[in-house]
Protein backbone atom coordinates (compact mmCIF):
# COMPACT_ATOMS: atom_id res chain seq x y z
CA UNK A 1 0.00 0.00 0.00
CA UNK A 2 1.39 3.39 -0.95
CA UNK A 3 1.98 5.94 1.77
CA UNK A 4 -0.67 8.61 2.24
CA UNK A 5 1.29 11.78 1.48
CA UNK A 6 -0.52 15.09 1.22
CA UNK A 7 0.45 18.67 0.47
CA UNK A 8 -0.81 21.17 3.01
CA UNK A 9 -0.10 24.17 5.20
CA UNK A 10 1.38 23.76 8.66
CA UNK A 11 -1.78 25.14 10.23
CA UNK A 12 -3.89 22.62 8.30
CA UNK A 13 -1.58 19.82 9.38
CA UNK A 14 -2.20 20.73 13.03
CA UNK A 15 -5.96 20.44 12.49
CA UNK A 16 -5.79 17.12 10.62
CA UNK A 17 -3.34 15.67 13.14
CA UNK A 18 -5.64 16.65 16.00
CA UNK A 19 -8.56 14.77 14.46
CA UNK A 20 -6.35 11.75 13.69
CA UNK A 21 -4.97 11.68 17.24
CA UNK A 22 -8.47 11.37 18.68
CA UNK A 23 -8.54 14.80 20.28
CA UNK A 24 -11.78 15.36 22.20
CA UNK A 25 -12.11 19.11 21.89
CA UNK A 26 -10.70 22.19 20.18
CA UNK A 27 -11.57 25.69 21.40
CA UNK A 28 -10.21 28.69 19.52
CA UNK A 29 -10.63 32.23 18.36
CA UNK A 30 -9.61 33.52 14.92
CA UNK A 31 -6.35 35.42 14.55
CA UNK A 32 -3.89 35.74 11.67
CA UNK A 33 -1.69 33.83 10.84
CA UNK A 34 -3.28 30.71 12.39
CA UNK A 35 -6.99 30.88 11.49
CA UNK A 36 -6.61 27.91 9.13
CA UNK A 37 -6.50 25.66 12.20
CA UNK A 38 -10.10 26.33 13.21
CA UNK A 39 -11.21 26.80 9.58
CA UNK A 40 -9.87 23.36 8.67
CA UNK A 41 -11.53 21.80 11.69
CA UNK A 42 -14.88 23.41 10.88
CA UNK A 43 -14.57 22.22 7.28
CA UNK A 44 -13.63 18.68 8.33
CA UNK A 45 -16.52 18.60 10.85
CA UNK A 46 -14.98 15.88 13.04
CA UNK A 47 -18.03 15.90 15.34
CA UNK A 48 -19.65 13.81 12.59
CA UNK A 49 -16.80 11.31 12.45
CA UNK A 50 -14.86 11.01 15.72
CA UNK A 51 -17.21 13.01 17.94
CA UNK A 52 -14.60 15.72 18.49
CA UNK A 53 -16.04 19.00 19.78
CA UNK A 54 -14.96 22.12 17.85
CA UNK A 55 -16.08 25.46 19.21
CA UNK A 56 -15.31 29.05 18.25
CA UNK A 57 -15.06 30.85 21.57
CA UNK A 58 -15.85 34.51 22.27
CA UNK A 59 -12.22 35.29 23.09
CA UNK A 60 -8.83 33.71 23.62
CA UNK A 61 -9.47 34.04 27.34
CA UNK A 62 -12.63 31.98 27.06
CA UNK A 63 -10.93 29.47 24.75
CA UNK A 64 -8.07 28.68 27.14
CA UNK A 65 -10.52 28.43 30.03
CA UNK A 66 -12.59 25.99 27.97
CA UNK A 67 -9.37 24.02 27.59
CA UNK A 68 -8.98 24.18 31.38
CA UNK A 69 -12.50 22.80 31.85
CA UNK A 70 -12.08 20.07 29.26
CA UNK A 71 -8.66 19.11 30.61
CA UNK A 72 -10.16 18.90 34.10
CA UNK A 73 -12.37 16.13 32.67
CA UNK A 74 -9.27 14.23 31.50
CA UNK A 75 -10.04 14.97 27.86
CA UNK A 76 -7.57 15.64 25.08
CA UNK A 77 -8.28 19.33 24.52
CA UNK A 78 -6.39 22.04 22.72
CA UNK A 79 -6.43 25.60 21.47
CA UNK A 80 -4.41 27.59 18.97
CA UNK A 81 -3.72 31.26 18.51
CA UNK A 82 -1.06 33.76 17.57
CA UNK A 83 1.03 36.05 19.74
CA UNK A 84 -1.50 38.74 20.85
CA UNK A 85 -4.05 36.01 21.51
CA UNK A 86 -1.52 33.89 23.37
CA UNK A 87 -0.84 36.83 25.67
CA UNK A 88 -4.53 36.62 26.62
CA UNK A 89 -4.22 32.90 27.25
CA UNK A 90 -1.46 33.31 29.83
CA UNK A 91 -3.97 33.46 32.67
CA UNK A 92 -5.39 30.08 31.76
CA UNK A 93 -1.98 28.54 31.13
CA UNK A 94 -0.82 29.57 34.60
CA UNK A 95 -3.99 28.10 36.14
CA UNK A 96 -3.49 24.88 34.19
CA UNK A 97 0.09 24.62 35.44
CA UNK A 98 -1.12 25.32 38.98
CA UNK A 99 -3.93 22.76 38.77
CA UNK A 100 -1.57 20.31 36.99
CA UNK A 101 -3.78 19.98 33.95
CA UNK A 102 -2.59 18.59 30.61
CA UNK A 103 -3.51 20.25 27.35
CA UNK A 104 -2.04 21.57 24.13
CA UNK A 105 -1.66 25.21 23.12
CA UNK A 106 -0.39 26.18 19.67
CA UNK A 107 1.23 29.60 19.16
CA UNK A 108 1.74 30.50 15.48
CA UNK A 109 3.85 33.54 16.29
CA UNK A 110 3.66 36.94 14.64
CA UNK A 111 5.70 40.05 15.32
CA UNK A 112 5.03 42.35 18.26
CA UNK A 113 4.81 44.01 20.68
CA UNK A 114 1.14 44.92 20.66
CA UNK A 115 -0.72 44.24 17.45
CA UNK A 116 2.69 44.40 15.77
CA UNK A 117 2.57 42.65 12.45
CA UNK A 118 0.93 39.57 11.02
CA UNK A 119 4.29 38.51 9.59
CA UNK A 120 6.32 35.70 11.19
CA UNK A 121 8.37 36.14 14.33
CA UNK A 122 9.95 34.19 17.18
CA UNK A 123 9.59 37.02 19.66
CA UNK A 124 7.46 35.00 22.11
CA UNK A 125 10.38 32.78 23.19
CA UNK A 126 10.73 34.56 26.54
CA UNK A 127 6.98 34.53 27.11
CA UNK A 128 6.81 30.80 26.46
CA UNK A 129 9.84 29.39 28.24
CA UNK A 130 10.32 31.95 31.01
CA UNK A 131 6.82 31.93 32.45
CA UNK A 132 4.39 34.08 30.49
CA UNK A 133 1.73 33.82 33.15
CA UNK A 134 2.22 34.40 36.87
CA UNK A 135 3.85 32.05 39.33
CA UNK A 136 6.73 29.59 39.24
CA UNK A 137 5.83 27.21 36.45
CA UNK A 138 7.18 25.72 33.26
CA UNK A 139 5.53 25.04 29.94
CA UNK A 140 6.68 22.06 27.87
CA UNK A 141 7.57 23.73 24.57
CA UNK A 142 7.98 22.04 21.19
CA UNK A 143 9.36 23.94 18.20
CA UNK A 144 8.52 22.34 14.84
CA UNK A 145 10.67 23.15 11.83
CA UNK A 146 8.49 21.55 9.14
CA UNK A 147 4.87 20.85 8.29
CA UNK A 148 5.55 17.20 9.13
CA UNK A 149 6.64 18.19 12.61
CA UNK A 150 3.53 20.37 13.00
CA UNK A 151 1.52 17.19 12.53
CA UNK A 152 3.83 14.96 14.59
CA UNK A 153 4.07 17.32 17.56
CA UNK A 154 0.32 17.26 18.17
CA UNK A 155 0.71 13.67 19.34
CA UNK A 156 4.00 14.37 21.11
CA UNK A 157 2.54 17.40 22.87
CA UNK A 158 -0.43 15.42 24.20
CA UNK A 159 1.78 12.50 25.23
CA UNK A 160 4.15 14.69 27.21
CA UNK A 161 1.44 16.85 28.72
CA UNK A 162 -0.53 13.83 29.95
CA UNK A 163 2.61 12.01 31.12
CA UNK A 164 3.50 14.92 33.38
CA UNK A 165 0.08 16.54 33.92
CA UNK A 166 1.41 19.82 32.61
CA UNK A 167 0.33 22.03 29.71
CA UNK A 168 2.42 21.82 26.54
CA UNK A 169 2.87 24.32 23.76
CA UNK A 170 3.75 24.01 20.09
CA UNK A 171 5.70 27.24 19.54
CA UNK A 172 5.79 27.87 15.83
CA UNK A 173 5.45 30.90 13.60
CA UNK A 174 3.78 32.27 10.51
CA UNK A 175 6.41 30.69 8.24
CA UNK A 176 5.77 27.12 9.36
CA UNK A 177 2.04 27.75 9.81
CA UNK A 178 1.52 29.16 6.32
CA UNK A 179 4.02 27.23 4.18
CA UNK A 180 2.91 24.15 2.28
CA UNK A 181 4.94 20.94 2.39
CA UNK A 182 4.49 17.26 2.01
CA UNK A 183 3.13 15.62 5.12
CA UNK A 184 2.30 12.08 6.09
CA UNK A 185 -0.56 12.15 8.53
CA UNK A 186 -0.78 9.56 11.31
CA UNK A 187 -3.35 6.77 11.29
CA UNK A 188 -6.78 7.68 12.63
CA UNK A 189 -7.04 6.70 16.29
CA UNK A 190 -10.36 6.34 18.00
CA UNK A 191 -11.20 8.67 20.87
CA UNK A 192 -10.94 7.17 24.33
CA UNK A 193 -14.09 5.92 25.99
CA UNK A 194 -15.33 7.39 29.25
CA UNK A 195 -14.04 4.31 31.05
CA UNK A 196 -10.60 4.62 29.45
CA UNK A 197 -10.43 8.28 30.50
CA UNK A 198 -11.38 7.30 34.07
CA UNK A 199 -8.58 4.71 34.13
CA UNK A 200 -5.97 6.98 32.56
CA UNK A 201 -6.95 10.04 34.60
CA UNK A 202 -8.25 8.97 38.03
CA UNK A 203 -8.10 12.65 39.04
CA UNK A 204 -10.56 13.79 36.34
CA UNK A 205 -13.90 15.42 37.16
CA UNK A 206 -16.20 13.02 35.34
CA UNK A 207 -18.75 12.75 38.13
CA UNK A 208 -18.03 11.29 41.57
CA UNK A 209 -18.61 7.55 41.69
CA UNK A 210 -19.37 5.70 44.93
CA UNK A 211 -15.93 4.12 45.05
CA UNK A 212 -13.93 7.32 45.42
CA UNK A 213 -13.77 10.70 47.12
CA UNK A 214 -14.75 13.80 45.14
CA UNK A 215 -12.22 14.96 42.57
CA UNK A 216 -11.40 18.65 42.82
CA UNK A 217 -9.36 20.49 40.21
CA UNK A 218 -7.93 23.65 41.71
CA UNK A 219 -4.76 25.71 41.85
CA UNK A 220 -5.74 27.30 45.16
CA UNK A 221 -4.03 26.57 48.49
CA UNK A 222 -4.17 29.28 51.14
CA UNK A 223 -2.03 27.40 53.67
CA UNK A 224 1.52 28.58 52.91
CA UNK A 225 3.13 25.39 54.16
CA UNK A 226 0.88 23.33 51.89
CA UNK A 227 1.35 25.70 48.96
CA UNK A 228 5.11 25.46 49.30
CA UNK A 229 4.78 21.69 49.17
CA UNK A 230 2.76 22.07 45.95
CA UNK A 231 5.47 24.33 44.52
CA UNK A 232 8.14 21.80 45.51
CA UNK A 233 6.17 19.04 43.81
CA UNK A 234 5.93 21.12 40.61
CA UNK A 235 9.65 21.89 40.70
CA UNK A 236 10.54 18.24 41.22
CA UNK A 237 8.41 17.38 38.19
CA UNK A 238 10.13 20.08 36.14
CA UNK A 239 13.55 18.64 37.08
CA UNK A 240 12.43 15.21 35.83
CA UNK A 241 11.24 16.73 32.55
CA UNK A 242 14.56 18.57 32.17
CA UNK A 243 16.38 15.29 32.77
CA UNK A 244 14.33 13.09 30.49
CA UNK A 245 12.57 15.04 27.76
CA UNK A 246 15.19 17.17 26.02
CA UNK A 247 14.92 16.83 22.25
CA UNK A 248 17.18 18.38 19.64
CA UNK A 249 18.62 17.76 16.19
CA UNK A 250 22.31 18.01 15.22
CA UNK A 251 23.36 18.73 11.65
CA UNK A 252 27.04 18.51 10.67
CA UNK A 253 28.12 19.13 14.22
CA UNK A 254 30.76 16.37 14.48
CA UNK A 255 33.63 18.35 12.99
CA UNK A 256 32.19 21.82 13.42
CA UNK A 257 34.38 24.77 14.37
CA UNK A 258 31.35 27.03 14.68
CA UNK A 259 27.83 26.19 15.76
CA UNK A 260 24.61 27.81 14.69
CA UNK A 261 21.82 27.40 17.24
CA UNK A 262 18.32 27.95 15.88
CA UNK A 263 14.79 26.58 16.21
CA UNK A 264 11.75 26.43 13.95
CA UNK A 265 11.81 28.55 10.81
CA UNK A 266 15.19 30.07 11.73
CA UNK A 267 16.63 26.55 11.81
CA UNK A 268 15.29 25.92 8.29
CA UNK A 269 17.20 28.98 7.08
CA UNK A 270 20.32 27.87 8.95
CA UNK A 271 20.22 24.47 7.23
CA UNK A 272 20.98 26.33 4.00
CA UNK A 273 23.54 28.56 5.72
CA UNK A 274 25.66 25.60 6.83
CA UNK A 275 25.62 24.29 3.24
CA UNK A 276 26.87 27.67 1.99
CA UNK A 277 29.52 27.76 4.73
CA UNK A 278 30.78 24.27 3.95
CA UNK A 279 31.01 25.18 0.25
CA UNK A 280 33.42 27.90 1.34
CA UNK A 281 35.39 25.48 3.48
CA UNK A 282 34.02 26.72 6.81
CA UNK A 283 33.15 23.91 9.21
CA UNK A 284 29.79 25.10 10.52
CA UNK A 285 27.17 22.91 12.19
CA UNK A 286 23.62 23.46 13.39
CA UNK A 287 22.10 22.47 16.70
CA UNK A 288 18.34 22.76 16.52
CA UNK A 289 16.55 22.64 19.86
CA UNK A 290 13.26 20.78 19.36
CA UNK A 291 12.21 21.25 22.96
CA UNK A 292 12.77 24.89 23.96
CA UNK A 293 11.82 23.93 27.49
CA UNK A 294 13.40 21.66 28.54
CA UNK A 295 16.36 23.29 26.80
CA UNK A 296 19.35 21.27 25.49
CA UNK A 297 21.68 22.88 28.02
CA UNK A 298 24.02 19.91 28.52
CA UNK A 299 24.43 19.33 24.81
CA UNK A 300 25.36 22.95 24.16
CA UNK A 301 27.81 22.87 27.08
CA UNK A 302 29.40 19.80 25.51
CA UNK A 303 29.85 21.59 22.17
CA UNK A 304 31.44 24.53 23.96
CA UNK A 305 34.50 22.31 24.42
CA UNK A 306 34.64 21.66 20.66
CA UNK A 307 33.72 24.83 18.79
CA UNK A 308 35.25 28.30 18.67
CA UNK A 309 31.93 30.12 18.93
CA UNK A 310 28.16 29.87 18.64
CA UNK A 311 25.66 32.06 16.82
CA UNK A 312 22.05 32.01 18.01
CA UNK A 313 19.89 32.80 15.00
CA UNK A 314 16.38 33.94 15.84
CA UNK A 315 13.50 35.96 14.39
CA UNK A 316 13.74 38.39 17.29
CA UNK A 317 16.10 40.80 19.04
CA UNK A 318 17.94 38.05 20.92
CA UNK A 319 16.03 35.83 23.34
CA UNK A 320 17.17 32.20 23.12
CA UNK A 321 20.74 33.51 22.99
CA UNK A 322 20.46 34.10 26.75
CA UNK A 323 19.84 30.39 27.34
CA UNK A 324 22.68 29.46 25.00
CA UNK A 325 25.00 31.76 26.97
CA UNK A 326 23.82 30.27 30.26
CA UNK A 327 24.55 26.80 28.90
CA UNK A 328 27.99 27.72 27.57
CA UNK A 329 28.82 29.83 30.63
CA UNK A 330 31.53 31.88 28.98
CA UNK A 331 33.59 28.98 27.64
CA UNK A 332 33.29 30.28 24.06
CA UNK A 333 31.80 33.46 22.58
CA UNK A 334 28.06 33.33 21.91
CA UNK A 335 26.54 35.93 19.60
CA UNK A 336 23.07 36.60 18.27
CA UNK A 337 21.82 37.33 14.81
CA UNK A 338 18.19 38.09 14.14
CA UNK A 339 15.71 40.13 12.16
CA UNK A 340 12.53 41.61 13.53
CA UNK A 341 9.21 43.00 12.41
CA UNK A 342 8.41 40.04 10.20
CA UNK A 343 11.62 40.21 8.17
CA UNK A 344 13.05 36.75 7.50
CA UNK A 345 16.85 36.39 7.66
CA UNK A 346 18.45 35.01 4.49
CA UNK A 347 20.93 32.09 4.50
CA UNK A 348 23.60 34.50 3.20
CA UNK A 349 22.74 37.00 5.90
CA UNK A 350 23.25 34.35 8.57
CA UNK A 351 26.63 33.37 7.10
CA UNK A 352 27.72 37.00 6.86
CA UNK A 353 26.74 37.55 10.48
CA UNK A 354 28.68 34.47 11.54
CA UNK A 355 31.80 35.75 9.80
CA UNK A 356 31.41 39.27 11.10
CA UNK A 357 30.59 38.42 14.72
CA UNK A 358 32.67 35.29 15.32
CA UNK A 359 35.14 34.37 12.54
CA UNK A 360 36.39 37.80 11.45
Amino acid sequence: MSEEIQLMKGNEAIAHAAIRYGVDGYFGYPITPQSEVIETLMEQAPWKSTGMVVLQAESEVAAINMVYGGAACGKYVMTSSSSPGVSLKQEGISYMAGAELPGLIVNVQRGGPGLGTIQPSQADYFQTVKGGGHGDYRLITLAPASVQEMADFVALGFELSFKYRNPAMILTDGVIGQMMEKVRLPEQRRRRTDQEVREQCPWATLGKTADRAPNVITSLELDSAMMEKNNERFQAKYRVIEEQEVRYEEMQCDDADYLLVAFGSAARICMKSIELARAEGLKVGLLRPITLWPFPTKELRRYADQVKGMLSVELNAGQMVEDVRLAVNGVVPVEHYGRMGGIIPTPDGVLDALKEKLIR
Partner: protein
Amino acid sequence: MDIETIKSPENLVYAKPELMNDNHMHYCPGCSHGVVHKVIAEVIAELGLQEKTIGIAPVGCAVFAYKYIDIDWQEAAHGRAPALATATKRLLPDRMVFTYQGDGDLAAIGTAETIHAANRGENIAIIFINNGIYGMTGGQMAPTTLSDMKTSTSPEGRNVETMGNPLKILDMLALLNGVCLATRTSVHTAAAVRKTKKLIKLAFENAMAGKGTSIVEVVSTCNAGWKMTPAAANDWMVEHMFPYYPIGDLKNI
Protein backbone atom coordinates in the same frame (compact mmCIF):
# COMPACT_ATOMS: atom_id res chain seq x y z
CA MET B 1 -40.63 13.10 76.86
CA ASP B 2 -36.92 12.39 76.51
CA ILE B 3 -34.69 13.73 73.75
CA GLU B 4 -34.31 10.36 71.99
CA THR B 5 -38.09 10.09 71.58
CA ILE B 6 -38.22 13.59 70.15
CA LYS B 7 -35.44 12.71 67.66
CA SER B 8 -37.55 9.98 66.04
CA PRO B 9 -37.70 10.05 62.21
CA GLU B 10 -41.37 11.05 62.07
CA ASN B 11 -40.50 14.23 63.93
CA LEU B 12 -37.69 15.13 61.56
CA VAL B 13 -38.38 18.43 59.82
CA TYR B 14 -34.82 19.60 59.17
CA ALA B 15 -31.59 17.72 58.51
CA LYS B 16 -28.17 18.15 57.02
CA PRO B 17 -28.23 17.01 53.38
CA GLU B 18 -26.40 13.74 52.80
CA LEU B 19 -24.07 15.38 50.23
CA MET B 20 -22.93 18.08 52.66
CA ASN B 21 -19.81 16.96 54.47
CA ASP B 22 -18.53 17.94 57.92
CA ASN B 23 -15.89 20.43 56.76
CA HIS B 24 -16.05 23.59 58.82
CA MET B 25 -17.58 26.33 56.67
CA HIS B 26 -15.59 29.52 56.22
CA TYR B 27 -18.67 31.67 55.58
CA CYS B 28 -19.58 34.41 58.03
CA PRO B 29 -22.55 33.75 60.32
CA GLY B 30 -25.67 35.09 58.61
CA CYS B 31 -24.27 34.73 55.08
CA SER B 32 -26.59 33.45 52.37
CA HIS B 33 -24.01 31.12 50.79
CA GLY B 34 -24.45 28.33 53.34
CA VAL B 35 -28.19 28.17 52.72
CA VAL B 36 -27.78 28.06 48.94
CA HIS B 37 -25.10 25.34 49.27
CA LYS B 38 -27.52 23.29 51.35
CA VAL B 39 -30.29 23.71 48.80
CA ILE B 40 -27.97 22.66 45.96
CA ALA B 41 -26.85 19.58 47.90
CA GLU B 42 -30.45 18.61 48.56
CA VAL B 43 -31.48 19.05 44.93
CA ILE B 44 -28.56 16.99 43.58
CA ALA B 45 -29.46 14.16 45.96
CA GLU B 46 -33.18 14.34 45.22
CA LEU B 47 -32.55 14.23 41.48
CA GLY B 48 -30.12 11.33 41.97
CA LEU B 49 -27.38 13.27 40.17
CA GLN B 50 -24.44 12.86 42.53
CA GLU B 51 -22.49 10.72 40.06
CA LYS B 52 -23.41 12.95 37.14
CA THR B 53 -22.83 16.40 38.60
CA ILE B 54 -19.79 18.58 38.02
CA GLY B 55 -19.78 21.90 39.86
CA ILE B 56 -17.69 24.87 38.83
CA ALA B 57 -16.64 27.11 41.72
CA PRO B 58 -15.85 30.81 41.22
CA VAL B 59 -13.34 33.25 42.62
CA GLY B 60 -14.97 35.13 45.46
CA CYS B 61 -16.40 34.03 48.79
CA ALA B 62 -17.62 30.78 47.24
CA VAL B 63 -14.14 29.88 46.00
CA PHE B 64 -14.17 27.02 48.51
CA ALA B 65 -17.63 25.73 47.54
CA TYR B 66 -15.80 22.54 46.54
CA LYS B 67 -14.98 21.84 50.16
CA TYR B 68 -18.57 21.40 51.30
CA ILE B 69 -20.57 19.37 48.77
CA ASP B 70 -19.32 15.87 47.95
CA ILE B 71 -19.37 16.00 44.17
CA ASP B 72 -16.65 16.55 41.56
CA TRP B 73 -15.62 20.19 41.29
CA GLN B 74 -13.49 22.45 39.15
CA GLU B 75 -12.23 25.72 40.59
CA ALA B 76 -12.18 28.38 37.86
CA ALA B 77 -10.16 31.53 37.33
CA HIS B 78 -12.10 34.69 38.22
CA GLY B 79 -15.14 35.02 35.97
CA ARG B 80 -14.30 32.06 33.72
CA ALA B 81 -16.66 29.47 35.22
CA PRO B 82 -19.08 29.54 32.24
CA ALA B 83 -16.15 28.78 29.88
CA LEU B 84 -15.15 25.75 31.97
CA ALA B 85 -18.80 24.70 32.15
CA THR B 86 -19.18 25.06 28.38
CA ALA B 87 -16.33 22.67 27.64
CA THR B 88 -17.28 20.25 30.39
CA LYS B 89 -20.89 19.98 29.23
CA ARG B 90 -19.97 19.78 25.54
CA LEU B 91 -17.47 17.00 26.25
CA LEU B 92 -19.75 15.20 28.75
CA PRO B 93 -23.26 15.90 27.45
CA ASP B 94 -24.98 13.44 29.80
CA ARG B 95 -23.59 15.12 32.95
CA MET B 96 -25.22 17.92 34.95
CA VAL B 97 -22.90 20.91 34.94
CA PHE B 98 -23.53 24.02 37.00
CA THR B 99 -21.58 27.13 37.91
CA TYR B 100 -21.82 28.93 41.22
CA GLN B 101 -20.82 32.59 40.88
CA GLY B 102 -20.98 35.84 42.75
CA ASP B 103 -21.79 39.25 41.32
CA GLY B 104 -18.19 40.34 40.77
CA ASP B 105 -17.33 37.04 39.14
CA LEU B 106 -20.40 36.85 36.90
CA ALA B 107 -21.30 40.49 36.22
CA ALA B 108 -17.90 42.22 36.14
CA ILE B 109 -14.84 40.21 35.19
CA GLY B 110 -16.81 37.30 33.73
CA THR B 111 -19.43 39.29 31.77
CA ALA B 112 -18.20 38.07 28.39
CA GLU B 113 -18.00 34.41 29.39
CA THR B 114 -21.46 34.58 31.01
CA ILE B 115 -23.22 36.31 28.14
CA HIS B 116 -21.67 34.17 25.43
CA ALA B 117 -22.27 30.87 27.23
CA ALA B 118 -25.91 31.92 27.67
CA ASN B 119 -26.13 33.16 24.08
CA ARG B 120 -24.93 29.78 22.83
CA GLY B 121 -27.61 28.22 25.02
CA GLU B 122 -25.12 25.98 26.78
CA ASN B 123 -27.07 23.33 28.65
CA ILE B 124 -25.79 24.41 32.04
CA ALA B 125 -27.23 25.93 35.19
CA ILE B 126 -25.80 29.14 36.62
CA ILE B 127 -26.40 29.89 40.29
CA PHE B 128 -25.77 33.61 40.71
CA ILE B 129 -25.32 35.01 44.20
CA ASN B 130 -25.99 38.76 44.09
CA ASN B 131 -25.17 40.49 47.36
CA GLY B 132 -24.06 43.77 45.82
CA ILE B 133 -20.53 43.68 47.18
CA TYR B 134 -17.14 41.96 46.95
CA GLY B 135 -17.13 39.88 50.12
CA MET B 136 -13.93 37.86 49.84
CA THR B 137 -11.65 40.85 49.30
CA GLY B 138 -13.21 42.84 52.10
CA GLY B 139 -16.23 44.80 50.90
CA GLN B 140 -15.38 46.63 47.69
CA MET B 141 -17.92 47.93 45.16
CA ALA B 142 -19.47 45.32 42.88
CA PRO B 143 -21.17 45.87 39.52
CA THR B 144 -24.45 45.26 41.35
CA THR B 145 -23.74 47.63 44.27
CA LEU B 146 -26.78 49.90 44.65
CA SER B 147 -26.68 53.62 43.98
CA ASP B 148 -25.34 55.56 47.01
CA MET B 149 -24.34 52.31 48.75
CA LYS B 150 -21.13 52.68 50.73
CA THR B 151 -18.30 50.21 50.18
CA SER B 152 -14.55 50.40 50.76
CA THR B 153 -14.05 51.60 47.17
CA SER B 154 -17.10 53.88 47.20
CA PRO B 155 -16.75 55.29 50.73
CA GLU B 156 -19.01 58.25 49.91
CA GLY B 157 -21.56 55.92 48.34
CA ARG B 158 -21.77 54.69 44.74
CA ASN B 159 -21.96 57.71 42.50
CA VAL B 160 -23.69 56.48 39.37
CA GLU B 161 -22.42 59.49 37.43
CA THR B 162 -18.82 58.31 37.76
CA MET B 163 -19.12 54.66 38.78
CA GLY B 164 -21.94 53.49 36.56
CA ASN B 165 -25.33 52.15 37.47
CA PRO B 166 -25.91 48.89 39.31
CA LEU B 167 -25.98 46.27 36.57
CA LYS B 168 -29.16 44.26 36.06
CA ILE B 169 -27.36 41.52 34.24
CA LEU B 170 -30.20 39.03 34.63
CA ASP B 171 -32.40 41.35 32.55
CA MET B 172 -29.74 41.32 29.84
CA LEU B 173 -29.42 37.54 29.97
CA ALA B 174 -33.18 37.04 29.79
CA LEU B 175 -33.16 38.65 26.33
CA LEU B 176 -30.97 35.91 24.86
CA ASN B 177 -32.56 33.12 22.88
CA GLY B 178 -30.23 30.57 24.48
CA VAL B 179 -31.68 31.22 27.92
CA CYS B 180 -34.65 29.09 29.04
CA LEU B 181 -34.82 30.21 32.67
CA ALA B 182 -33.88 33.60 34.11
CA THR B 183 -35.28 34.00 37.57
CA ARG B 184 -34.61 36.00 40.70
CA THR B 185 -35.14 34.61 44.18
CA SER B 186 -33.84 34.88 47.75
CA VAL B 187 -33.20 32.76 50.82
CA HIS B 188 -34.07 35.11 53.69
CA THR B 189 -37.22 33.29 54.85
CA ALA B 190 -38.22 29.62 55.02
CA ALA B 191 -40.73 30.20 52.21
CA ALA B 192 -38.08 31.87 50.10
CA VAL B 193 -35.69 28.96 50.64
CA ARG B 194 -38.38 26.50 49.53
CA LYS B 195 -39.04 28.59 46.42
CA THR B 196 -35.33 28.82 45.66
CA LYS B 197 -35.01 25.06 45.97
CA LYS B 198 -37.79 24.58 43.40
CA LEU B 199 -36.06 26.98 41.00
CA ILE B 200 -32.63 25.38 41.37
CA LYS B 201 -34.22 21.98 40.81
CA LEU B 202 -35.87 23.33 37.66
CA ALA B 203 -32.53 24.76 36.50
CA PHE B 204 -30.79 21.41 37.00
CA GLU B 205 -33.63 19.58 35.24
CA ASN B 206 -33.38 22.04 32.33
CA ALA B 207 -29.64 21.38 32.08
CA MET B 208 -30.23 17.64 31.91
CA ALA B 209 -33.10 18.04 29.44
CA GLY B 210 -30.97 20.17 27.10
CA LYS B 211 -33.31 23.14 27.19
CA GLY B 212 -30.57 25.76 27.23
CA THR B 213 -29.03 27.97 29.88
CA SER B 214 -30.78 28.48 33.21
CA ILE B 215 -29.79 31.33 35.50
CA VAL B 216 -31.05 31.49 39.07
CA GLU B 217 -30.12 34.81 40.68
CA VAL B 218 -30.27 34.62 44.45
CA VAL B 219 -30.52 38.15 45.84
CA SER B 220 -28.46 37.72 48.98
CA THR B 221 -27.05 39.47 52.00
CA CYS B 222 -23.48 40.10 53.00
CA ASN B 223 -23.97 41.24 56.56
CA ALA B 224 -20.21 41.37 57.18
CA GLY B 225 -19.55 43.45 54.07
CA TRP B 226 -22.64 45.55 54.61
CA LYS B 227 -21.58 45.98 58.27
CA MET B 228 -24.96 44.96 59.72
CA THR B 229 -26.33 42.18 61.87
CA PRO B 230 -27.75 39.24 59.88
CA ALA B 231 -31.32 40.25 60.76
CA ALA B 232 -30.72 43.89 59.83
CA ALA B 233 -29.10 42.78 56.58
CA ASN B 234 -32.21 40.78 55.68
CA ASP B 235 -34.39 43.82 56.36
CA TRP B 236 -32.05 46.08 54.37
CA MET B 237 -32.11 43.64 51.46
CA VAL B 238 -35.93 43.59 51.40
CA GLU B 239 -36.10 47.36 51.65
CA HIS B 240 -33.33 48.32 49.21
CA MET B 241 -32.27 45.37 47.04
CA PHE B 242 -35.69 43.95 46.17
CA PRO B 243 -37.06 47.19 44.64
CA TYR B 244 -34.08 47.33 42.25
CA TYR B 245 -33.71 43.56 41.77
CA PRO B 246 -37.36 42.41 41.93
CA ILE B 247 -37.99 38.78 42.86
CA GLY B 248 -39.67 36.59 40.24
CA ASP B 249 -39.26 35.01 36.82
CA LEU B 250 -37.97 37.16 33.99
CA LYS B 251 -38.14 34.17 31.70
CA ASN B 252 -39.27 30.58 32.26
CA ILE B 253 -39.90 28.47 29.17
